[in-house]
């Protein structure tokens, strides 16, 4: 079979044609103004992204670079679309799509103890968080983005997630993964009060939903949508 497929080669002229098109292809520049919220279709996920496309892309790149060690198979794509609303207004939308494979949460329970797991290192945090307190791991990347990984609760009832703030200190992404999204734990309520505000929210998903996402069957899509007043 090897000998056979060695002879199946792409037409050189067609290859050059595609290559030339890729070299000359450009993405249109757009102006971004105020952020609004959108909800992903597959699961209840909300993320607010600040107004400029550059920030959206930077945030996605930051998440990507920061969590590559943890999310070994994380892939991110940014897509821009434009459309006209019913009243004739022009809208632009940026969506950052994250697809994961084989993602292990950074909260793990082993032998009745709760651990924070990062880069293969297990830290026993059973006594560092509780039903009303969270354990935090914070890191500021080279671009000034502050990433907080948190774990809250007890070995019997725990949750985990992440918060990302841009260099201006604004919350640009927050996520919490919990057992029960309907009954909010004290640690999560407290976290929301401290970290979120009416403009920036922390999305909450169940562990089952998270598993479904990371199994590769679904893609989590975060939207930033802006009105172009030009």
């Amino acid at each position, binding site marked *: *079979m090897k000998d056979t497929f060695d002879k199946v*080669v792409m037409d050189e002229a067609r290859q050059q044609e*595609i*290559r030339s098109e890729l070299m000359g292809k450009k*993405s249109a520049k757009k102006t971004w103004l105020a952020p609004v919220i959108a909800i992903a279709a597959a699961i209840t996920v909300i993320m607010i992204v600040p107004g400029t496309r550059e920030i959206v892309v930077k945030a996605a790149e930051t998440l990507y670079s920061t969590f590559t060690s943890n999310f070994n198979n994380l892939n991110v*794509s*940014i897509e821009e679309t434009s459309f006209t609303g019913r009243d004739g207004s022009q809208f632009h939308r940026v969506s950052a799509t994250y697809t994961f494979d084989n993602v292990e949460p950074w909260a793990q329970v082993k032998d009745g103890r709760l651990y924070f797991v990062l880069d293969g290192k297990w830290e026993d945090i059973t006594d560092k968080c509780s039903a009303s307190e969270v354990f935090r791991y914070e890191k500021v990347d080279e671009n000034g983005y502050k990433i907080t990984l948190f774990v809250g609760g007890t070995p019997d009832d725990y949750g985990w997630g992440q918060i990302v703030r841009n260099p201006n200190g604004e919350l640009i992404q927050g996520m919490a993964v919990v057992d029960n999204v309907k009954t909010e734990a004290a640690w999560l309520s407290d976290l929301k009060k401290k970290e979120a505000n009416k403009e920036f929210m922390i999305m909450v998903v169940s562990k089952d939903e998270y598993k479904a996402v990371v199994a590769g069957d679904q893609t989590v899509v975060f939207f930033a949508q802006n009105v172009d007043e030009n």
Partner: protein
Amino acid sequence: MKNEDVIRLFDLYSNDLYKFAVSYLGSKYDAEDIVQEVFSKLLDKHMFFDKRNEKAYLMTMTANKCKDHLKSSARDNVDLDSEEWHLEYYDGFTERNKMVFDELMRLEEQFRVPIYLHYYAGYSYKEISGILKLSESAVAVRISRGKERLRIRLEE
């Protein structure tokens, strides 16, 4: 992803993706279009991914594009009786090459693609399960069954 990054990937992997798409679709022209769509998507969607997994990710993108193409054209194997088919491929083939190629392409897609990935492209069952989004056991079964069918056909 910047144009120069996409070009680097194109120069490195376009032929591998092309062969893979041929094994999936059977058509040279469709395979060329799929390769173009994959790399255009990298630019259109500003995609970026871990360099360690870049080829596997491109293979998965190609597989997804091929699946969509097969769905839209509602077919899973190749019409080897068409004149177009013969004109497309046999240049430079020995009789043995023709026989192997024809019989492989006559296999159903579910067998053909894993066999190509394992026996030609050299991927492990685990890697194939990642590319095709199948369980490793499903990959093993498909390769085993496909290989048996191919063996019988080549012996006939």
